[in-house]
C-alpha cells in the first residue's frame, strides 16, 4: 500500500465514450429485502473490522482485565477464595463487560454521521432501519467475541459451569439477544448527541449504576431495602439471574422471561426513538 496516489492517477482523462457506456441505464434490480439490506450493512461492519482490527482491542483486553481484576480483588473477601467467587461471579462479569461494550455502537454511529457516509445511506431506497440494524449485527459479533474471551479466562481460572456446553451457549445466546436490544439505547444517543465524547459520557453515567447496583458482584441480600428494590427491577439483574441459571443447568423461567420482556421493550421504545431521530436528522 503506497501513499503516492495523486501522481499515478493524475493522468486520468475522462472519456465521454467509457463514461457513456457506464451511464447507459441497465435494468434496475428490485430493491433488496429488509433482511438483505441489513445483512449488507452487517457486511460493512465486518469490513471495517478487517481494515481497523485495533477496534477489537476493547472487546478482548477490557473483558480480560475486568475478569482478572474483580476475581482477585473481591474473591477472597466475598467467597473465601477467588476460585469459589468465580463460580458466582463469571456470568455477572460477562454481562457487565458485554453490556459496557454496547456503548461503542453509539460512539460508532456518531463517528459515522460525523464522517458523512450516513447521508448517502439515508438517500438509498432501502428499508430505513437497515443501516442501523446492520451496524448492530456487526456489533453482535463483537459481543460474542467478548463473551468467549471471558469464558476462556474463566475456564482457565477454574470456572466450571454445571449446565455444560449447552448451558453456556444458551447463556451467551441470552446475553447477545439482550445486548442487541440494549444497543438501541446507544443508537438513540449516538443520533442525539453532538460528539462521541458526550456519547461516552452519557453511557458511563447509565452503565455504571446499572451494572454495579445489581447482583453482578455481590448477593443483594446484604443491601439496604431501597437498593434491593432497585436491583429487583434492574434489567441487568434479571439478565444475570437468567444467565447464571442456564449456565448452572437450572434454568430460571421467570428471569429468562423478564430478559425477553426487557429486550422487546428496549427495541420497541429505543428502536422507535432512534428511527424517529434518524428520519428527521
Amino acid at each position, binding site marked *: *500500500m503506497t*501513499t503516492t*496516489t*495523486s501522481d*499515478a*492517477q*493524475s*493522468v*486520468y*482523462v*475522462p*472519456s*465521454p465514450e*467509457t*463514461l*457513456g*457506456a*457506464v*451511464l*447507459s*441505464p441497465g435494468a*434496475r*434490480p*428490485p*430493491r*433488496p429485502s429488509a433482511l*438483505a*439490506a441489513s445483512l*449488507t*450493512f452487517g*457486511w*460493512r461492519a465486518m*469490513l*471495517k473490522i478487517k*481494515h*481497523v482490527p485495533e477496534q477489537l482491542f476493547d472487546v478482548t483486553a477490557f473483558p480480560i482485565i475486568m475478569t482478572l481484576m474483580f476475581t482477585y480483588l473481591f474473591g477472597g473477601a466475598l467467597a473465601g477464595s477467588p476460585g469459589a467467587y468465580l463460580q458466582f461471579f463469571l456470568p455477572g462479569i460477562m454481562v457487565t463487560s458485554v453490556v459496557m461494550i454496547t456503548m461503542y455502537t453509539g460512539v460508532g454511529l456518531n463517528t459515522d454521521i460525523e*464522517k*458523512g*457516509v450516513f*447521508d*448517502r*445511506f*439515508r*438517500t*438509498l*431506497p*432501502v428499508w430505513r432501519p437497515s443501516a442501523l440494524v446492520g451496524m448492530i449485527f456487526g456489533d453482535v459479533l463483537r459481543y460474542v467475541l467478548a463473551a468467549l474471551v471471558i469464558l476462556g479466562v474463566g475456564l482457565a481460572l477454574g470456572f466450571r459451569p454445571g449446565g455444560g456446553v449447552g448451558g453456556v451457549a444458551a447463556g451467551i445466546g441470552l446475553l447477545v439477544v439482550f445486548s442487541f436490544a440494549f444497543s438501541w439505547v446507544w443508537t438513540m444517543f449516538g443520533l442525539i448527541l453532538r460528539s462521541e465524547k458526550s456519547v461516552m459520557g452519557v453511557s458511563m453515567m447509565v452503565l455504571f449504576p446499572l451494572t454495579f447496583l445489581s447482583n453482578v458482584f455481590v448477593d443483594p441480600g446484604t443491601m439496604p431495602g431501597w437498593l434491593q428494590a432497585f436491583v429487583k427491577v434492574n434489567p441487568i439483574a434479571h439478565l444475570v439471574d437468567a444467565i447464571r441459571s442456564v449456565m448452572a443447568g437450572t434454568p430460571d423461567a421467570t428471569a429468562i422471561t423478564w430478559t425477553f420482556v426487557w429486550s422487546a421493550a428496549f427495541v420497541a421504545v429505543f428502536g422507535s426513538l432512534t428511527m424517529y431521530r434518524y428520519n*428527521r*436528522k
Partner: protein
Amino acid sequence: MTDRPTGPAIEAKGLVKTFGETRALDGIDLRVPAGSVFGLLGPNGAGKTTAVRVLATLTRPDAGEARVFGHDVVREADAVRSRVSLTGQYASVDEDLTGVENLVLLGRLLGHRKAAARARADELLTAFGLTEAADRQVKKYSGGMRRRIDIAASILNTPQLLFLDEPTTGLDPRSRNQVWEIVRAVVAHGTTVLLTTQYLDEADQLASRIAVVDHGKVIAEGTPGELKSSIGSGTVHVRLRDAATRPKAREVLALALGTSVELAADPVALSARVEGSDFEASTQAARALSELAAAGIVVDDFSLGQPSLDEVFLALTDHPATPEKEAVR
C-alpha cells in the same frame, strides 16, 4: 427508466427551514427543467446545501413543498429516493473501506446480487480511472480521486436527478476539469444535475440556468447570459503601460463613456460599465479607445466584455460572492 419524465425535474415552492435562530431557507422557489444542469450559486452559508438536503429527502422543510419528478419529497420520499443520487460533503463514501468495497456495498444495497455488484463496480472504477486504487482505502485517495469515487457511487444506478453539492470545492484545476467532464457526460445521458457552487466560473461553464441564492432566498434566476445582461451591456477593461497615466485615463474614460470608472487593485488596470444596447456599447468603447490614444496614453490591453458573474453577484447583493475564493482555490 423507460418513463422519461416530461415535467420539470424539481418544483419547489416557499421552502423554509430554520435551525434555531438561523433561517437557512427563507422561502426558496425553484423550477428545474429536466435534462440540464441547473446551478445554485451562492456564498458559504447561503442555504445551498440545506436546499439540496431538503430536495434529496434528507431534511424535512418547516414550510413549503417540493416535488421531484412530481413526487413530494416528504410524503413520497421513497419514490424520490429511487430517482435521485446525492454527492456532497456529507453524502460521501466510507473512508475506512476500499474503493471497490464501497461500490459493491452500495450496489448490493441497490439490489444487485454479489457478482453483478462486483461487475458494476469494476466497470465504474475503470471508467473513472480508479482501477489501480480499487483495493486501497478511500482515506488514502487524493482529493480528485475521492470526488470521482463519490460520483461513481452516485451513478451505480443511473439516477434521473443527480445532486452535486460543491463537487469541486478544494480541488486543483486539473481535478476540477475532470469533474466537469464527468458532469457533462452525465448530462449528455439525460440525467438532470442540480449543482451547487460558490464558484462563478463553474456555474458559467456547466449550468444552462442559474439561481443565485443569498440568505436562504433566490435573488435572481436565469441563463448565465440573462443574468449578465441584467446589469448592463458590458464592461470595458483597460490595462495601461504606465501606472502614472491612470488618473488621466480615468478622466478620459469617464468623459467618453459617461459612467463612473472603477480602479482595480492592479495599479495599471481600470474598468467601466457601458450602458445602452450592444451596438451603442461597441461604438462607445471604440470612441473611448481612440480618445485614450488622442490623449497620448499607451494602452496595453483593451477589451469590451460581458460583465463577469462576479460583477453580477456584486450588483445583486451589494457584497462579493466569495470573499475567501482565492484562499480556497
